[in-house]
Protein backbone atom coordinates (compact mmCIF):
# COMPACT_ATOMS: atom_id res chain seq x y z
CA UNK A 1 0.00 0.00 0.00
CA UNK A 2 2.79 2.34 1.00
CA UNK A 3 4.88 1.42 -2.02
CA UNK A 4 2.62 3.29 -4.42
CA UNK A 5 3.14 6.49 -2.44
CA UNK A 6 6.89 5.95 -2.16
CA UNK A 7 7.58 7.43 -5.55
CA UNK A 8 6.02 10.67 -4.34
CA UNK A 9 7.39 10.56 -0.80
CA UNK A 10 11.01 9.71 -1.54
CA UNK A 11 11.72 12.62 -3.91
CA UNK A 12 10.35 15.00 -1.30
CA UNK A 13 11.78 13.51 1.90
CA UNK A 14 15.30 12.49 0.91
CA UNK A 15 16.37 15.88 -0.51
CA UNK A 16 14.83 17.53 2.54
CA UNK A 17 16.78 15.29 4.91
CA UNK A 18 19.96 16.05 2.97
CA UNK A 19 19.25 19.76 3.36
CA UNK A 20 18.91 19.67 7.15
CA UNK A 21 21.76 17.26 7.92
CA UNK A 22 24.89 18.80 9.49
CA UNK A 23 27.43 19.40 6.74
CA UNK A 24 30.12 17.18 8.25
CA UNK A 25 27.98 14.05 7.84
CA UNK A 26 28.80 13.69 4.13
CA UNK A 27 32.45 12.74 4.58
CA UNK A 28 33.62 15.53 2.27
CA UNK A 29 36.12 17.91 3.87
CA UNK A 30 35.16 21.58 3.72
CA UNK A 31 31.67 21.01 2.29
CA UNK A 32 29.94 24.37 1.95
CA UNK A 33 26.23 25.02 2.45
CA UNK A 34 25.78 25.66 -1.25
CA UNK A 35 27.40 22.34 -2.07
CA UNK A 36 25.13 20.60 0.39
CA UNK A 37 22.11 22.12 -1.36
CA UNK A 38 23.46 20.96 -4.70
CA UNK A 39 23.62 17.43 -3.29
CA UNK A 40 19.97 17.77 -2.29
CA UNK A 41 19.01 19.00 -5.76
CA UNK A 42 20.99 16.19 -7.34
CA UNK A 43 19.19 13.65 -5.15
CA UNK A 44 15.88 15.21 -6.11
CA UNK A 45 16.77 14.97 -9.80
CA UNK A 46 17.87 11.36 -9.53
CA UNK A 47 14.79 10.27 -7.62
CA UNK A 48 12.42 12.13 -9.93
CA UNK A 49 14.04 10.85 -13.12
CA UNK A 50 14.15 7.28 -11.87
CA UNK A 51 10.77 7.04 -10.15
CA UNK A 52 8.95 9.50 -12.44
CA UNK A 53 6.41 10.93 -10.02
CA UNK A 54 6.17 13.89 -12.42
CA UNK A 55 6.96 13.99 -16.16
CA UNK A 56 10.70 13.90 -16.87
CA UNK A 57 10.76 17.35 -18.46
CA UNK A 58 8.95 18.74 -15.41
CA UNK A 59 11.79 17.42 -13.28
CA UNK A 60 14.16 19.51 -15.36
CA UNK A 61 12.16 22.65 -14.75
CA UNK A 62 11.98 21.85 -11.04
CA UNK A 63 15.78 21.50 -10.98
CA UNK A 64 16.28 24.89 -12.58
CA UNK A 65 13.79 26.60 -10.28
CA UNK A 66 15.23 24.91 -7.18
CA UNK A 67 18.66 26.10 -8.20
CA UNK A 68 17.37 29.63 -8.61
CA UNK A 69 15.75 29.54 -5.19
CA UNK A 70 18.46 27.73 -3.25
CA UNK A 71 21.84 28.53 -4.74
CA UNK A 72 21.52 31.61 -6.96
CA UNK A 73 22.56 35.12 -6.00
CA UNK A 74 18.93 36.23 -6.36
CA UNK A 75 17.39 33.35 -4.44
CA UNK A 76 15.32 33.34 -1.25
CA UNK A 77 16.77 35.65 1.38
CA UNK A 78 17.42 33.13 4.11
CA UNK A 79 19.39 30.95 1.74
CA UNK A 80 21.78 33.87 1.20
CA UNK A 81 22.58 34.76 4.83
CA UNK A 82 26.33 35.35 4.84
CA UNK A 83 28.26 32.77 6.83
CA UNK A 84 31.77 31.34 6.57
CA UNK A 85 30.46 27.98 5.28
CA UNK A 86 28.10 29.42 2.69
CA UNK A 87 30.31 28.97 -0.38
CA UNK A 88 29.81 30.60 -3.79
CA UNK A 89 26.36 31.68 -4.84
CA UNK A 90 25.84 31.12 -8.55
CA UNK A 91 24.72 34.01 -10.77
CA UNK A 92 21.03 33.66 -11.59
CA UNK A 93 21.73 34.55 -15.23
CA UNK A 94 24.01 31.53 -15.54
CA UNK A 95 21.25 29.21 -14.36
CA UNK A 96 18.52 30.81 -16.47
CA UNK A 97 20.79 30.83 -19.51
CA UNK A 98 20.62 27.04 -19.60
CA UNK A 99 17.17 27.44 -21.17
CA UNK A 100 18.87 29.09 -24.12
CA UNK A 101 22.28 27.51 -24.16
CA UNK A 102 23.86 26.98 -27.59
CA UNK A 103 23.07 23.28 -27.27
CA UNK A 104 19.37 24.05 -26.98
CA UNK A 105 19.67 26.24 -30.09
CA UNK A 106 21.39 23.42 -31.96
CA UNK A 107 18.48 21.16 -31.13
CA UNK A 108 15.96 23.81 -32.07
CA UNK A 109 17.61 24.06 -35.48
CA UNK A 110 17.38 20.29 -35.81
CA UNK A 111 13.69 20.39 -34.91
CA UNK A 112 13.02 23.01 -37.58
CA UNK A 113 14.76 20.94 -40.22
CA UNK A 114 12.88 17.82 -39.21
CA UNK A 115 9.55 19.60 -39.08
CA UNK A 116 9.98 21.20 -42.50
CA UNK A 117 11.11 17.87 -43.97
CA UNK A 118 7.99 16.17 -42.66
CA UNK A 119 5.67 18.99 -43.65
CA UNK A 120 6.96 19.01 -47.21
CA UNK A 121 7.16 15.20 -47.25
CA UNK A 122 10.87 15.11 -47.97
CA UNK A 123 11.15 12.19 -45.55
CA UNK A 124 8.54 9.91 -47.12
CA UNK A 125 9.65 10.71 -50.66
CA UNK A 126 13.28 10.06 -49.85
CA UNK A 127 12.32 6.79 -48.20
CA UNK A 128 10.43 5.78 -51.34
CA UNK A 129 13.35 6.54 -53.64
CA UNK A 130 16.02 5.08 -51.36
CA UNK A 131 14.14 1.84 -50.74
CA UNK A 132 13.81 1.03 -54.46
CA UNK A 133 17.31 -0.43 -54.96
CA UNK A 134 16.72 -2.94 -52.17
CA UNK A 135 14.28 -4.92 -54.29
CA UNK A 136 11.70 -7.19 -52.71
CA UNK A 137 13.66 -9.93 -50.91
CA UNK A 138 12.65 -9.55 -47.27
CA UNK A 139 16.13 -9.51 -45.78
CA UNK A 140 17.38 -6.84 -48.17
CA UNK A 141 14.23 -4.80 -47.78
CA UNK A 142 14.87 -4.94 -44.03
CA UNK A 143 18.48 -3.83 -44.51
CA UNK A 144 17.24 -0.92 -46.62
CA UNK A 145 14.62 0.02 -44.07
CA UNK A 146 17.19 -0.02 -41.32
CA UNK A 147 19.67 2.09 -43.25
CA UNK A 148 17.08 4.69 -44.15
CA UNK A 149 15.70 4.77 -40.62
CA UNK A 150 19.20 5.28 -39.27
CA UNK A 151 19.97 8.09 -41.70
CA UNK A 152 16.72 9.87 -40.88
CA UNK A 153 17.17 9.52 -37.14
CA UNK A 154 20.49 11.30 -37.45
CA UNK A 155 18.61 14.46 -38.38
CA UNK A 156 15.11 13.88 -37.04
CA UNK A 157 14.01 12.69 -33.64
CA UNK A 158 14.23 8.93 -33.22
CA UNK A 159 10.57 8.89 -32.29
CA UNK A 160 9.37 10.79 -35.36
CA UNK A 161 11.50 8.58 -37.60
CA UNK A 162 10.05 5.46 -36.03
CA UNK A 163 6.48 6.67 -36.45
CA UNK A 164 7.08 7.42 -40.11
CA UNK A 165 8.81 4.13 -40.92
CA UNK A 166 6.30 2.04 -38.98
CA UNK A 167 3.45 3.71 -40.85
CA UNK A 168 5.09 2.70 -44.13
CA UNK A 169 5.77 -0.78 -42.82
CA UNK A 170 2.59 -1.70 -41.00
CA UNK A 171 0.39 -2.43 -44.05
CA UNK A 172 3.09 -4.82 -45.25
CA UNK A 173 3.52 -6.54 -41.91
CA UNK A 174 -0.22 -7.05 -41.81
CA UNK A 175 0.07 -9.16 -44.98
CA UNK A 176 2.59 -11.59 -43.46
CA UNK A 177 1.33 -14.88 -42.03
CA UNK A 178 0.49 -14.84 -38.33
CA UNK A 179 3.20 -17.36 -37.46
CA UNK A 180 5.87 -15.70 -39.56
CA UNK A 181 8.78 -14.54 -37.40
CA UNK A 182 9.41 -11.93 -40.07
CA UNK A 183 6.73 -9.85 -38.38
CA UNK A 184 8.91 -9.66 -35.30
CA UNK A 185 12.06 -8.96 -37.28
CA UNK A 186 10.48 -6.14 -39.28
CA UNK A 187 8.79 -4.59 -36.27
CA UNK A 188 12.06 -4.65 -34.33
CA UNK A 189 14.24 -3.45 -37.17
CA UNK A 190 12.79 0.05 -37.15
CA UNK A 191 13.22 1.02 -33.47
CA UNK A 192 16.62 -0.67 -33.31
CA UNK A 193 17.82 1.26 -36.36
CA UNK A 194 16.34 4.51 -35.04
CA UNK A 195 18.07 4.10 -31.67
CA UNK A 196 21.39 3.27 -33.28
CA UNK A 197 21.09 5.96 -35.94
CA UNK A 198 20.74 8.72 -33.37
CA UNK A 199 24.37 8.17 -32.39
CA UNK A 200 25.58 9.34 -35.79
CA UNK A 201 25.36 13.12 -35.37
CA UNK A 202 25.42 15.63 -32.48
CA UNK A 203 21.74 16.40 -33.10
CA UNK A 204 20.70 12.77 -33.53
CA UNK A 205 19.63 12.30 -29.92
CA UNK A 206 19.69 14.44 -26.73
CA UNK A 207 22.48 12.51 -24.94
CA UNK A 208 24.85 13.56 -27.74
CA UNK A 209 23.96 17.20 -27.18
CA UNK A 210 24.54 16.83 -23.45
CA UNK A 211 27.93 15.30 -24.16
CA UNK A 212 28.84 18.34 -26.27
CA UNK A 213 28.26 20.50 -23.21
CA UNK A 214 31.19 18.76 -21.55
CA UNK A 215 33.39 18.59 -24.62
CA UNK A 216 34.70 22.14 -24.64
CA UNK A 217 37.93 24.02 -25.38
CA UNK A 218 40.71 21.66 -26.44
CA UNK A 219 38.30 18.72 -26.28
CA UNK A 220 35.62 20.23 -28.51
CA UNK A 221 34.31 18.12 -31.35
CA UNK A 222 32.77 19.72 -34.43
CA UNK A 223 29.67 18.43 -36.21
CA UNK A 224 31.76 16.97 -38.99
CA UNK A 225 34.27 15.37 -36.63
CA UNK A 226 31.46 13.70 -34.73
CA UNK A 227 30.12 12.23 -37.95
CA UNK A 228 33.57 10.94 -38.91
CA UNK A 229 33.40 8.43 -36.08
CA UNK A 230 29.63 8.41 -35.44
CA UNK A 231 28.55 7.30 -38.90
CA UNK A 232 30.97 4.35 -39.21
CA UNK A 233 29.92 3.24 -35.74
CA UNK A 234 26.27 3.38 -36.79
CA UNK A 235 27.06 1.40 -39.94
CA UNK A 236 28.88 -1.35 -38.05
CA UNK A 237 26.13 -1.60 -35.43
CA UNK A 238 23.38 -1.64 -38.05
CA UNK A 239 25.06 -4.48 -39.85
CA UNK A 240 25.38 -6.44 -36.61
CA UNK A 241 21.75 -5.74 -35.72
CA UNK A 242 20.63 -6.80 -39.18
CA UNK A 243 22.52 -10.09 -38.97
CA UNK A 244 21.05 -10.72 -35.53
CA UNK A 245 17.52 -10.01 -36.72
CA UNK A 246 17.67 -12.26 -39.77
CA UNK A 247 19.31 -15.06 -37.75
CA UNK A 248 17.01 -14.90 -34.74
CA UNK A 249 13.77 -14.13 -36.56
CA UNK A 250 13.97 -15.56 -40.08
CA UNK A 251 11.19 -14.60 -42.50
CA UNK A 252 9.31 -17.33 -44.30
CA UNK A 253 7.76 -14.94 -46.79
CA UNK A 254 9.46 -14.88 -50.20
CA UNK A 255 8.63 -11.43 -51.38
CA UNK A 256 7.73 -8.20 -49.73
CA UNK A 257 6.51 -5.03 -51.40
CA UNK A 258 6.54 -1.66 -49.74
CA UNK A 259 4.13 0.61 -51.51
CA UNK A 260 4.67 4.27 -50.76
CA UNK A 261 2.41 6.72 -52.57
CA UNK A 262 3.29 10.21 -53.65
CA UNK A 263 5.74 12.29 -55.65
CA UNK A 264 8.44 14.79 -54.77
CA UNK A 265 6.79 18.16 -54.29
CA UNK A 266 7.94 20.82 -56.72
CA UNK A 267 6.37 23.94 -55.25
CA UNK A 268 8.67 26.90 -54.49
CA UNK A 269 8.31 26.27 -50.75
CA UNK A 270 9.23 22.61 -51.09
CA UNK A 271 12.29 23.54 -53.16
CA UNK A 272 13.31 26.06 -50.50
CA UNK A 273 13.11 23.25 -47.94
CA UNK A 274 15.31 20.96 -50.05
CA UNK A 275 17.94 23.64 -50.59
CA UNK A 276 17.98 24.74 -46.95
CA UNK A 277 18.24 21.16 -45.78
CA UNK A 278 21.19 20.35 -47.98
CA UNK A 279 22.80 23.74 -47.32
CA UNK A 280 22.59 23.40 -43.55
CA UNK A 281 24.10 19.94 -43.54
CA UNK A 282 26.93 21.06 -45.81
CA UNK A 283 27.61 24.05 -43.55
CA UNK A 284 27.65 21.73 -40.54
CA UNK A 285 30.16 19.48 -42.22
CA UNK A 286 32.43 22.26 -43.46
CA UNK A 287 32.78 24.11 -40.16
CA UNK A 288 36.55 24.46 -40.55
CA UNK A 289 36.25 26.34 -43.83
CA UNK A 290 33.70 29.05 -43.01
CA UNK A 291 34.38 29.38 -39.28
CA UNK A 292 30.76 29.13 -38.10
CA UNK A 293 30.28 26.48 -35.47
CA UNK A 294 27.39 24.00 -35.44
CA UNK A 295 25.36 26.16 -33.04
CA UNK A 296 25.49 29.22 -35.28
CA UNK A 297 24.68 27.21 -38.40
CA UNK A 298 21.67 25.64 -36.66
CA UNK A 299 19.89 28.98 -36.51
CA UNK A 300 20.12 29.60 -40.27
CA UNK A 301 17.34 27.14 -41.21
CA UNK A 302 15.21 28.60 -38.42
CA UNK A 303 15.44 32.05 -40.00
CA UNK A 304 14.87 30.77 -43.54
CA UNK A 305 11.84 28.68 -42.63
CA UNK A 306 10.02 31.38 -40.71
CA UNK A 307 10.81 34.00 -43.35
CA UNK A 308 9.31 31.96 -46.17
CA UNK A 309 6.34 30.88 -44.05
CA UNK A 310 7.42 27.25 -44.29
CA UNK A 311 7.06 27.03 -40.55
CA UNK A 312 4.17 29.20 -39.39
CA UNK A 313 3.25 30.22 -35.90
CA UNK A 314 0.86 27.28 -35.50
CA UNK A 315 3.71 24.90 -36.38
CA UNK A 316 5.85 26.58 -33.73
CA UNK A 317 3.45 25.35 -31.10
CA UNK A 318 4.13 21.78 -32.15
CA UNK A 319 7.84 21.87 -31.45
CA UNK A 320 8.86 19.39 -28.75
CA UNK A 321 9.58 22.03 -26.14
CA UNK A 322 9.57 19.29 -23.53
CA UNK A 323 12.74 17.80 -25.03
CA UNK A 324 14.44 21.21 -24.95
CA UNK A 325 13.48 21.68 -21.31
CA UNK A 326 14.58 18.17 -20.47
CA UNK A 327 18.02 18.88 -21.90
CA UNK A 328 18.30 22.29 -20.25
CA UNK A 329 17.57 20.75 -16.83
CA UNK A 330 20.51 18.44 -17.32
CA UNK A 331 22.73 21.33 -18.30
CA UNK A 332 21.60 23.27 -15.23
CA UNK A 333 22.42 20.30 -13.03
CA UNK A 334 25.90 20.19 -14.55
CA UNK A 335 26.33 23.93 -14.02
CA UNK A 336 25.40 23.61 -10.35
CA UNK A 337 27.73 20.68 -9.75
CA UNK A 338 30.57 22.46 -11.49
CA UNK A 339 30.17 26.08 -10.34
CA UNK A 340 29.54 25.21 -6.71
CA UNK A 341 32.77 23.24 -6.67
CA UNK A 342 30.91 20.15 -5.49
CA UNK A 343 31.86 17.94 -8.42
CA UNK A 344 35.54 18.49 -7.85
CA UNK A 345 35.28 18.15 -4.06
CA UNK A 346 33.28 14.95 -4.25
CA UNK A 347 35.58 13.40 -6.79
CA UNK A 348 38.62 14.28 -4.67
CA UNK A 349 36.99 12.79 -1.60
CA UNK A 350 36.59 9.39 -3.25
CA UNK A 351 39.84 7.66 -4.17
CA UNK A 352 39.07 7.15 -7.87
CA UNK A 353 42.74 7.75 -8.57
CA UNK A 354 43.53 4.22 -7.46
CA UNK A 355 41.05 2.74 -9.87
CA UNK A 356 42.35 1.46 -13.17
CA UNK A 357 41.15 3.90 -15.83
CA UNK A 358 39.94 1.13 -18.14
CA UNK A 359 37.91 -0.32 -15.32
CA UNK A 360 36.42 3.11 -14.78
CA UNK A 361 35.48 3.50 -18.46
CA UNK A 362 33.93 0.03 -18.48
CA UNK A 363 32.12 0.52 -15.18
CA UNK A 364 30.74 3.95 -16.06
CA UNK A 365 29.56 2.81 -19.50
CA UNK A 366 27.88 -0.30 -18.13
CA UNK A 367 26.19 1.73 -15.40
CA UNK A 368 24.91 4.15 -18.02
CA UNK A 369 23.74 1.30 -20.28
CA UNK A 370 21.79 -0.28 -17.44
CA UNK A 371 20.26 3.04 -16.40
CA UNK A 372 19.32 3.91 -19.97
CA UNK A 373 17.31 0.71 -20.22
CA UNK A 374 15.09 1.74 -17.36
CA UNK A 375 14.95 5.52 -17.55
CA UNK A 376 15.04 7.93 -20.48
CA UNK A 377 18.35 8.17 -22.33
CA UNK A 378 18.38 11.89 -21.77
CA UNK A 379 17.81 11.58 -18.05
CA UNK A 380 20.53 8.94 -17.75
CA UNK A 381 23.00 11.15 -19.62
CA UNK A 382 21.88 14.20 -17.64
CA UNK A 383 22.64 12.45 -14.36
CA UNK A 384 25.88 10.72 -15.22
CA UNK A 385 27.72 13.07 -17.56
CA UNK A 386 28.34 15.97 -15.12
CA UNK A 387 29.86 13.55 -12.61
CA UNK A 388 31.82 11.71 -15.26
CA UNK A 389 33.12 14.97 -16.69
CA UNK A 390 34.28 16.19 -13.29
CA UNK A 391 35.89 12.86 -12.57
CA UNK A 392 37.66 12.76 -15.91
CA UNK A 393 39.27 16.18 -15.56
CA UNK A 394 40.90 15.20 -12.30
CA UNK A 395 42.15 11.77 -13.34
CA UNK A 396 45.64 11.98 -14.76
CA UNK A 397 45.81 8.22 -15.25
CA UNK A 398 43.10 8.50 -17.91
CA UNK A 399 45.28 10.54 -20.26
CA UNK A 400 47.06 7.66 -22.02
CA UNK A 401 43.66 6.22 -22.90
CA UNK A 402 42.41 9.43 -24.48
CA UNK A 403 41.46 11.46 -21.42
CA UNK A 404 38.01 12.79 -20.73
CA UNK A 405 36.84 12.72 -24.35
CA UNK A 406 37.01 8.94 -24.41
CA UNK A 407 35.25 8.56 -21.09
CA UNK A 408 32.48 11.03 -22.01
CA UNK A 409 31.93 9.49 -25.44
CA UNK A 410 31.87 5.96 -24.07
CA UNK A 411 29.19 6.90 -21.56
CA UNK A 412 27.20 8.86 -24.16
CA UNK A 413 27.20 5.99 -26.62
CA UNK A 414 26.18 3.63 -23.84
CA UNK A 415 23.20 5.88 -23.09
CA UNK A 416 21.92 5.52 -26.66
CA UNK A 417 22.41 1.75 -26.63
CA UNK A 418 19.89 1.09 -23.87
CA UNK A 419 17.03 -0.46 -25.84
CA UNK A 420 16.10 -3.80 -24.35
CA UNK A 421 12.65 -2.95 -22.99
CA UNK A 422 9.53 -1.32 -24.37
CA UNK A 423 10.02 1.45 -21.81
CA UNK A 424 13.66 2.04 -22.73
CA UNK A 425 12.95 4.45 -25.58
CA UNK A 426 9.87 5.92 -27.28
CA UNK A 427 10.72 4.06 -30.54
CA UNK A 428 10.66 0.78 -28.62
CA UNK A 429 7.33 1.65 -27.06
CA UNK A 430 5.86 2.48 -30.47
CA UNK A 431 7.06 -0.75 -32.04
CA UNK A 432 5.85 -2.74 -29.06
CA UNK A 433 2.44 -1.15 -29.48
CA UNK A 434 2.17 -2.82 -32.90
CA UNK A 435 1.46 -6.04 -31.01
CA UNK A 436 3.87 -8.10 -33.11
CA UNK A 437 6.66 -8.23 -30.56
CA UNK A 438 6.95 -9.87 -27.17
CA UNK A 439 9.00 -8.18 -24.48
CA UNK A 440 11.40 -11.08 -24.33
CA UNK A 441 12.09 -10.88 -28.06
CA UNK A 442 12.86 -7.21 -27.73
CA UNK A 443 15.04 -7.90 -24.71
CA UNK A 444 16.99 -10.58 -26.56
CA UNK A 445 17.99 -8.21 -29.34
CA UNK A 446 18.33 -5.21 -27.01
CA UNK A 447 20.69 -6.84 -24.54
CA UNK A 448 22.96 -8.25 -27.25
CA UNK A 449 23.09 -4.94 -29.13
CA UNK A 450 23.70 -3.02 -25.90
CA UNK A 451 26.67 -5.10 -24.84
CA UNK A 452 28.14 -5.56 -28.31
CA UNK A 453 27.60 -1.85 -28.95
CA UNK A 454 29.53 -0.78 -25.87
CA UNK A 455 32.39 -3.09 -26.86
CA UNK A 456 32.41 -1.79 -30.43
CA UNK A 457 32.42 1.75 -29.00
CA UNK A 458 35.47 0.89 -26.90
CA UNK A 459 37.24 -0.51 -29.94
CA UNK A 460 36.38 2.58 -31.94
CA UNK A 461 37.55 4.95 -29.19
CA UNK A 462 40.77 2.94 -28.89
CA UNK A 463 41.45 3.40 -32.59
CA UNK A 464 40.54 7.10 -32.45
CA UNK A 465 42.94 7.58 -29.57
CA UNK A 466 45.74 5.66 -31.29
CA UNK A 467 45.35 7.75 -34.42
CA UNK A 468 45.31 10.95 -32.32
CA UNK A 469 41.88 11.91 -33.68
CA UNK A 470 40.72 12.68 -30.16
CA UNK A 471 42.39 13.13 -26.83
Amino acid at each position, binding site marked *: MLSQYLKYLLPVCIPFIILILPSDSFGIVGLTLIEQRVIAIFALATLCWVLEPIPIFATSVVIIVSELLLISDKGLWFFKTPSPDLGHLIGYQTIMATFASPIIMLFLGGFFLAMAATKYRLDVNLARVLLKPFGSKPKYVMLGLMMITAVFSMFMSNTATTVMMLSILSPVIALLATKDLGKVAFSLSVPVAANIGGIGTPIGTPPNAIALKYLVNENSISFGQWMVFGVPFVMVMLFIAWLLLIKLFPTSTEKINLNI*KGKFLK*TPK*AITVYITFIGTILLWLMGDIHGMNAYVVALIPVAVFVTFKIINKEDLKRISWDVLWLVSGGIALGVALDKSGLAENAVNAIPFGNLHPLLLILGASMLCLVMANFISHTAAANLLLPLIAALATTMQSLLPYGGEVVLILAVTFAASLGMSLPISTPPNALAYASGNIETKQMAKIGVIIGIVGVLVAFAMLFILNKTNFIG
Partner: protein
Amino acid sequence: MEKINIICVDDEREVLESVSRDLDYFSDMFNIEECESAFECLALLEEFDAQQEYVALIISDHIMPEKSGVELLTEVAMDNRFLGTKKLLLTGLATQADTIEAINNAKLDNFLEKVWDPKQLLQMVKELLTEYIIEKGIDYEEYIEKLDAPTLYRLLK
Protein backbone atom coordinates in the same frame (compact mmCIF):
# COMPACT_ATOMS: atom_id res chain seq x y z
CA MET B 1 -2.87 33.24 -48.16
CA GLU B 2 -2.81 29.48 -48.59
CA LYS B 3 -4.86 27.92 -51.36
CA ILE B 4 -7.62 25.90 -49.76
CA ASN B 5 -9.88 23.74 -51.92
CA ILE B 6 -13.43 22.50 -51.65
CA ILE B 7 -14.34 19.67 -54.01
CA CYS B 8 -17.92 18.86 -55.02
CA VAL B 9 -18.65 15.52 -56.66
CA ASP B 10 -21.90 14.57 -58.38
CA ASP B 11 -22.65 12.80 -61.64
CA GLU B 12 -25.63 15.05 -62.34
CA ARG B 13 -24.61 18.35 -63.83
CA GLU B 14 -27.56 20.33 -62.40
CA VAL B 15 -26.98 19.14 -58.85
CA LEU B 16 -23.31 19.99 -59.12
CA GLU B 17 -24.10 23.47 -60.32
CA SER B 18 -26.61 24.04 -57.62
CA VAL B 19 -24.14 22.99 -54.88
CA SER B 20 -21.54 25.31 -56.37
CA ARG B 21 -24.03 28.14 -56.45
CA ASP B 22 -24.88 27.63 -52.80
CA LEU B 23 -21.19 27.68 -51.92
CA ASP B 24 -20.53 30.84 -53.90
CA TYR B 25 -20.26 32.70 -50.59
CA PHE B 26 -16.86 31.05 -50.05
CA SER B 27 -15.51 31.49 -53.56
CA ASP B 28 -13.47 34.63 -52.95
CA MET B 29 -11.28 32.92 -50.36
CA PHE B 30 -11.58 29.25 -51.19
CA ASN B 31 -11.25 27.42 -54.47
CA ILE B 32 -14.34 25.44 -55.37
CA GLU B 33 -13.86 22.53 -57.76
CA GLU B 34 -16.50 20.47 -59.54
CA CYS B 35 -16.05 16.80 -60.40
CA GLU B 36 -18.50 14.61 -62.29
CA SER B 37 -17.19 11.27 -61.04
CA ALA B 38 -15.24 9.71 -58.20
CA PHE B 39 -12.32 9.05 -60.56
CA GLU B 40 -12.18 12.66 -61.58
CA CYS B 41 -12.10 13.59 -57.92
CA LEU B 42 -9.25 11.17 -57.15
CA ALA B 43 -7.19 12.51 -60.05
CA LEU B 44 -7.78 16.04 -58.82
CA LEU B 45 -6.71 15.02 -55.31
CA GLU B 46 -3.42 13.69 -56.69
CA GLU B 47 -2.87 16.97 -58.48
CA PHE B 48 -3.58 19.06 -55.39
CA ASP B 49 -1.35 16.81 -53.34
CA ALA B 50 1.58 17.28 -55.70
CA GLN B 51 1.09 21.05 -55.42
CA GLN B 52 0.83 20.77 -51.62
CA GLU B 53 -2.55 22.46 -51.65
CA TYR B 54 -5.04 21.97 -48.89
CA VAL B 55 -8.22 20.00 -49.54
CA ALA B 56 -10.50 21.12 -46.77
CA LEU B 57 -13.74 19.52 -47.79
CA ILE B 58 -15.18 16.97 -50.18
CA ILE B 59 -18.93 17.11 -50.74
CA SER B 60 -19.97 13.98 -52.54
CA ASP B 61 -23.15 12.45 -53.87
CA HIS B 62 -23.60 8.82 -52.91
CA ILE B 63 -25.04 7.05 -55.94
CA MET B 64 -22.75 7.42 -58.93
CA PRO B 65 -21.80 4.96 -61.67
CA GLU B 66 -18.51 3.00 -61.32
CA LYS B 67 -17.52 4.22 -57.88
CA SER B 68 -19.98 5.33 -55.22
CA GLY B 69 -19.59 8.34 -52.95
CA VAL B 70 -19.05 6.13 -49.92
CA GLU B 71 -16.30 4.20 -51.70
CA LEU B 72 -14.64 7.45 -52.71
CA LEU B 73 -14.78 8.95 -49.23
CA THR B 74 -13.56 5.70 -47.66
CA GLU B 75 -10.54 5.77 -49.94
CA VAL B 76 -9.82 9.36 -48.94
CA ALA B 77 -10.25 8.52 -45.26
CA MET B 78 -7.63 5.75 -45.54
CA ASP B 79 -5.06 7.91 -47.32
CA ASN B 80 -2.81 9.59 -44.78
CA ARG B 81 -1.99 12.37 -47.19
CA PHE B 82 -5.50 13.65 -46.73
CA LEU B 83 -5.74 13.35 -42.99
CA GLY B 84 -8.15 15.92 -41.68
CA THR B 85 -10.00 16.49 -44.96
CA LYS B 86 -13.67 16.92 -44.07
CA LYS B 87 -16.21 14.69 -45.77
CA LEU B 88 -19.85 15.49 -46.41
CA LEU B 89 -22.19 13.00 -48.05
CA LEU B 90 -25.10 14.44 -49.96
CA THR B 91 -27.68 11.88 -50.80
CA GLY B 92 -31.34 11.21 -51.37
CA LEU B 93 -31.58 7.46 -51.56
CA ALA B 94 -29.32 6.07 -48.87
CA THR B 95 -30.44 2.87 -47.20
CA GLN B 96 -29.65 2.35 -43.56
CA ALA B 97 -26.85 -0.04 -44.52
CA ASP B 98 -25.30 2.64 -46.75
CA THR B 99 -25.50 5.14 -43.94
CA ILE B 100 -23.85 2.83 -41.45
CA GLU B 101 -21.10 1.98 -43.91
CA ALA B 102 -20.56 5.64 -44.68
CA ILE B 103 -20.20 6.64 -41.08
CA ASN B 104 -18.01 3.71 -40.08
CA ASN B 105 -15.70 3.40 -43.06
CA ALA B 106 -15.63 6.81 -44.65
CA LYS B 107 -15.52 8.57 -41.26
CA LEU B 108 -18.12 11.05 -42.48
CA ASP B 109 -18.20 14.42 -40.83
CA ASN B 110 -21.67 15.28 -42.01
CA PHE B 111 -24.63 13.86 -43.82
CA LEU B 112 -27.11 15.97 -45.77
CA GLU B 113 -30.24 14.83 -47.52
CA LYS B 114 -31.31 15.95 -50.95
CA VAL B 115 -33.16 18.34 -51.35
CA TRP B 116 -31.20 20.45 -48.95
CA ASP B 117 -31.72 23.88 -47.51
CA PRO B 118 -28.97 26.15 -48.90
CA LYS B 119 -28.68 27.93 -45.57
CA GLN B 120 -28.12 24.68 -43.74
CA LEU B 121 -25.46 23.61 -46.24
CA LEU B 122 -23.73 26.97 -45.88
CA GLN B 123 -23.64 26.68 -42.10
CA MET B 124 -22.35 23.10 -42.22
CA VAL B 125 -19.58 24.02 -44.63
CA LYS B 126 -18.66 27.01 -42.49
CA GLU B 127 -18.24 24.82 -39.43
CA LEU B 128 -16.28 22.15 -41.29
CA LEU B 129 -13.92 24.71 -42.83
CA THR B 130 -13.33 26.27 -39.43
CA GLU B 131 -12.49 22.89 -37.93
CA TYR B 132 -10.18 22.06 -40.83
CA ILE B 133 -8.27 25.32 -40.65
CA ILE B 134 -7.71 25.09 -36.91
CA GLU B 135 -6.81 21.41 -36.98
CA LYS B 136 -4.33 21.91 -39.81
CA GLY B 137 -2.66 24.82 -38.04
CA ILE B 138 -3.36 27.24 -40.91
CA ASP B 139 -3.30 30.90 -39.89
CA TYR B 140 -7.00 31.41 -39.29
CA GLU B 141 -6.95 35.18 -39.03
CA GLU B 142 -6.93 35.66 -42.80
CA TYR B 143 -10.09 33.62 -43.23
CA ILE B 144 -11.92 34.84 -40.19
CA GLU B 145 -14.82 36.53 -41.98
CA LYS B 146 -15.88 33.27 -43.64
CA LEU B 147 -15.51 31.10 -40.57
CA ASP B 148 -18.06 30.07 -38.00
CA ALA B 149 -17.49 32.12 -34.86
CA PRO B 150 -18.84 29.71 -32.21
CA THR B 151 -16.81 26.82 -33.66
CA LEU B 152 -13.75 29.04 -33.77
CA TYR B 153 -14.09 30.06 -30.13
CA ARG B 154 -14.68 26.48 -29.06
CA LEU B 155 -11.54 25.24 -30.82
CA LEU B 156 -9.28 28.08 -29.79
CA LYS B 157 -10.29 28.12 -26.17
